[in-house]
Structure formats: structure tokens, C-alpha cells
């Protein structure tokens, strides 16, 4: 952009900024655009028109008190940009050092665990057997051989035979659900949740703030909107008797269409559309009473991957508000 041929004294000059950076600055100046997200390296910042992020849209809604001449606090530019060469406000970059908050993630295993939690703690399938109540174990299908034969002794008899009833759950499919929203683009996520964090040693509630009517800063963790998926679980119930199978079908059917999972963690909506059952009596084998059903779970996945860490926003601070209720001056002529 700047060239030494324009100079009258023909003295060689080194450009203070790179051409792309200069073009970007000129573009912003002309458009009045916001700086790009702070975590995006300068070389990667897009200068093409792009949809505004949720943060930008929210900031636009704020009408600042213009008479003070302070500008929009949400659009705080670096007042020392000229001296430092940093064209964004570094207060928007929040260090996560010593931050014990775990990165928010929902993995496939978390969803599987939600299903098992619901089976074991909410449905608690049980049947009548030998004059008593018998809880029904729920296992994931096809475990390792040693685990199945040696560790899972609680549902085996003395000879090692699997005692019934038992429920076997196995995930068979994971399908992208495009009927609901998404993060839009994994290279530059646009949609975020806000997860408020409690007070801590660096952001504590203190009585002095209360006296001064200062609203405490609320820290939030920005969590990218996950990928919504539909997961399918094939389940097999195997029992000694049809009467037991009926009871299992009743209890599981009742739980259909509700949100499954640990209330302290994640819950996902599960649908069970039908049950099939079969009874077989074959030569030289035990009588087989088996029921099958399919769980259709609507979940979301927020993975713990480097791409997410690089591109997505991590934390935000709310604005601290100080309300001045009254002031006292010694001499009224000093006002103004």
C-alpha cells in the first residue's frame, strides 16, 4: 500500500504495518466494524463481510450515555493502540490461568452414561423371581471376554452361566441432526451458550461493593453450541419368563419420551417407538424369552478438540456497574 516512490526525498522507508494488516485496518475504519474475535490470529482474520456474532448483535443493542463522551463501553477500543500497536482491547482477553473450571464438553460416552444412569437410577428395572424382587442388571453389549467371564460374576451362577433377566444395551448409530441449530462453522463458531460461574478469589462479593451499590462482575464461560445428533441404541431384554418380560416392557415404555440422564450432568430426550418380543423353545437349550426395543436419543456433542480450543471464545466478563447515589461538594462553585 505505502510505497517509497510516493516520497519526494526518495528515502527508503520501511512500512510500519504489513499490507494485509493495513488493508484490514482501512477496511475497518471505513466500515466501522468490530475487531475480529480475540482468539483468532491476525493473519487468519477475515476481512470479508461476515454475519455478526451473538456478542456483536448484543453489543449493538446497548445505547451508551453519549453525553459523557466516553463512547460505547462494549465497543472499547484500545486507547493506547498507537503506542502499543495492539488494535483491540486486551481486557477482552481473559486469562484462564488458575481457572479450575473444566472445559465444557459433552462426548459420546457422556450420552451413553446418561442412558445407563437413567436405567440404573430412575427406571430401576426389576422383576419378581423366586418369591422376591430381583433387580435387573443393565450391561453394555459384547464386553471384553475377561471382564465378562471374571468380573461380571454378580449376574452369573456358580457354573458361570448368565442368570436372567438381563438387559443389554448397545449403541448402533449416530446421525447428524440438521433440523436444529448448530455452531455454523467449526473454523469460526458463531453461536455460544453462556455458562455463569460462581464467585471466586479473584471475583468475590464484598460488603464494600454493597455499600457503593457496585454490581459484581459476573464471569461467564462461553460454550460453543454443540453438534446436535440423533443416537440409536439397540436393546435386548432377556428373561426366564414372559411375565418378567412384560414387567420390563411396562417400566421402560413408561420412561419413553422423557429426558434421560443424571440431573447433575446432562439429560437427553429419549424416544422408544416400539417393542418386539419372541419366545422360543429349541432342542437342548433353555427356553428363550427375549424382547427388543430401540432407543432414539436426541443429544448434542461438544468435543474436547484442539480446533475448538483455538477458534472458540472461552470466557467473558459482564460489565461492572457503579451507581453513584449522592455526592457532596464543599463549594458549589466547584461544580462543573
Amino acid at each position, binding site marked *: 500500500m505505502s510505497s517509497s516512490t510516493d516520497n519526494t526525498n526518495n528515502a527508503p522507508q520501511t512500512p510500519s504495518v504489513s499490507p494485509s494488516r493495513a488493508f484490514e485496518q482501512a477496511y475497518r475504519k471505513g466500515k466501522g466494524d468490530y475487531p475480529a474475535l480475540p482468539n483468532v490470529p491476525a493473519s487468519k482474520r477475515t476481512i470479508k463481510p461476515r454475519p455478526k456474532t451473538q456478542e456483536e448483535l448484543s453489543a449493538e443493542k446497548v445505547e451508551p450515555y453519549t453525553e459523557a463522551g466516553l463512547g460505547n463501553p462494549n465497543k472499547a477500543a484500545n486507547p493506547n493502540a498507537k503506542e502499543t500497536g495492539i488494535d483491540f482491547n486486551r481486557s477482552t482477553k481473559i486469562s484462564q490461568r488458575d481457572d479450575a473450571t473444566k472445559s465444557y464438553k459433552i462426548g459420546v460416552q457422556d450420552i451413553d452414561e446418561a442412558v445407563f444412569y437413567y436405567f440404573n437410577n430412575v427406571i430401576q428395572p426389576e422383576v*419378581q*423371581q*423366586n*418369591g422376591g424382587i*430381583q433387580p435387573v442388571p443393565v*450391561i453394555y*453389549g*459384547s*464386553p471384553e*471376554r475377561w*471382564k*465378562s*467371564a471374571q468380573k*461380571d460374576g*454378580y*449376574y*452369573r*451362577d*456358580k*457354573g*458361570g*452361566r*448368565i*442368570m*436372567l433377566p*438381563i438387559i*443389554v444395551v*448397545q449403541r448402533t448409530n449416530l446421525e447428524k441432526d440438521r433440523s436444529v441449530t448448530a455452531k455454523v462453522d467449526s473454523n469460526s463458531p458463531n453461536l455460544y451458550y453462556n455458562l455463569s460461574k460462581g464467585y471466586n478469589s479473584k471475583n468475590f462479593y464484598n460488603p464494600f461493593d454493597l455499600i457503593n451499590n457496585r454490581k459484581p462482575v459476573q464471569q461467564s464461560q462461553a460454550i460453543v453450541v454443540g453438534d446436535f445428533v440423533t443416537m440409536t441404541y439397540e436393546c*435386548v431384554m*432377556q428373561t*426366564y*419368563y*414372559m*411375565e*418378567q418380560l412384560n414387567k420390563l416392557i411396562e417400566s421402560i415404555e413408561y420412561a419413553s419420551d422423557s429426558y434421560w440422564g443424571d440431573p447433575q450432568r446432562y439429560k437427553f430426550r429419549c424416544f422408544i417407538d416400539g417393542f418386539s418380543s419372541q*419366545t422360543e423353545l429349541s*432342542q*437342548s*437349550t*433353555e*427356553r428363550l424369552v427375549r424382547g427388543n426395543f430401540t432407543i432414539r436419543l436426541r443429544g448434542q456433542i461438544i468435543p474436547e478438540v484442539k480446533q475448538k480450543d483455538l477458534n472458540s471464545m472461552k470466557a467473558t466478563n459482564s460489565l461492572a456497574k457503579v451507581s453513584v447515589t449522592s455526592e457532596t461538594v464543599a463549594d458549589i462553585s466547584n461544580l462543573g
Partner: protein
Amino acid sequence: MALFTSGRDFSMMRHINRELLNDIISQQASFYKYKIGDTKTNIYGEAAGEKYFDGPYIFSCLVSRSDQEFPESDLGVNFNQAIDFSFFRDDLVDTMYVPEVGDIVLYQESYYEIDDLVANQYFGGKNPDYPNNGSAGQQNPLNPGLSKFGANVSIIAKTHYVPADKLNLSPYKERL
């Protein structure tokens, strides 16, 4: 008239068999028999509530064990074993015990359900229960007195393994 395999001949065989089974081989197994009247069934033909048994009745027998099998499925590693128990029929007759399909055999603290009963071993190929006499009691015109010849020697019970908690017979607490 038949000349061989008379009841007197079989008497010697009986003594030899009993000595062989009881004193030399000395393998044993026990029968449990369902109490049909006490064990209630539902519309699916199953006794899902409680089962009642008579027994155990212990007998000497020949035990023909097949190898233990550990088939694998979605449920994990399972267990199965088929065993054939061969009983001397006269032992069962003396105790008025009639084994039937569905009865349970207890062997080495494990339970086996009878799938098949084979009573097909005749001394001299003759079953004295069928002497082919007339319906009015007339002697067989070709070979009178066949009821005193031959013998039904054995009953072979072909079984498969049954999980212990299904029967609730085991003195051990199978389920924790």
C-alpha cells in the same frame, strides 16, 4: 418258545450291573421332580412365581459328560454343558420313580434339565412288557410266555445345563 434271555438270565445281569454301578463305577446323580399340583402356571405356560419339587432322589448311574462350552454373544461369555445320565431301569422301578422330560437332575452342585429320555436298550432285544398276548389274556400263539424273557435295561436322560437361580433349588445364594 424262547430259550434265552429269560428272567433268570437277566437276574444275573442285574446283579452284575448293580455291582458295577454301585461298587465299581459309583457315579451318582439325583432327580428333582416337579410338583404339578402345587406349581402354578400362567397363560404363557410358565411358572414365573414359585416352583415346587419332590426330591432329590439319588441314583447310581453312568455319567457321560460332553465338554463345557463358553459361547459368546451380546450378553458376553456364557456357559453350557450337556450331560447324558444312564440309569439302570430296575433301580428306578424299585423306587417307583418315573423320570420325565422337564425333570431336573442334580450333578456336582449343578442343575440339568432333561430334554430327551431314551429307553431303548433291551436285553436280548425283547421288552417283556409287550409279550404280544391276546387282548382277552390268550397266550401268544407263536411264542407263549414272552413276558418272562428279555428286559428293558436302561433309561438314558439327555440333559442341558440350567442356571441355578431359575430353579431356586441351590442352597447357595446365587444372586448377590
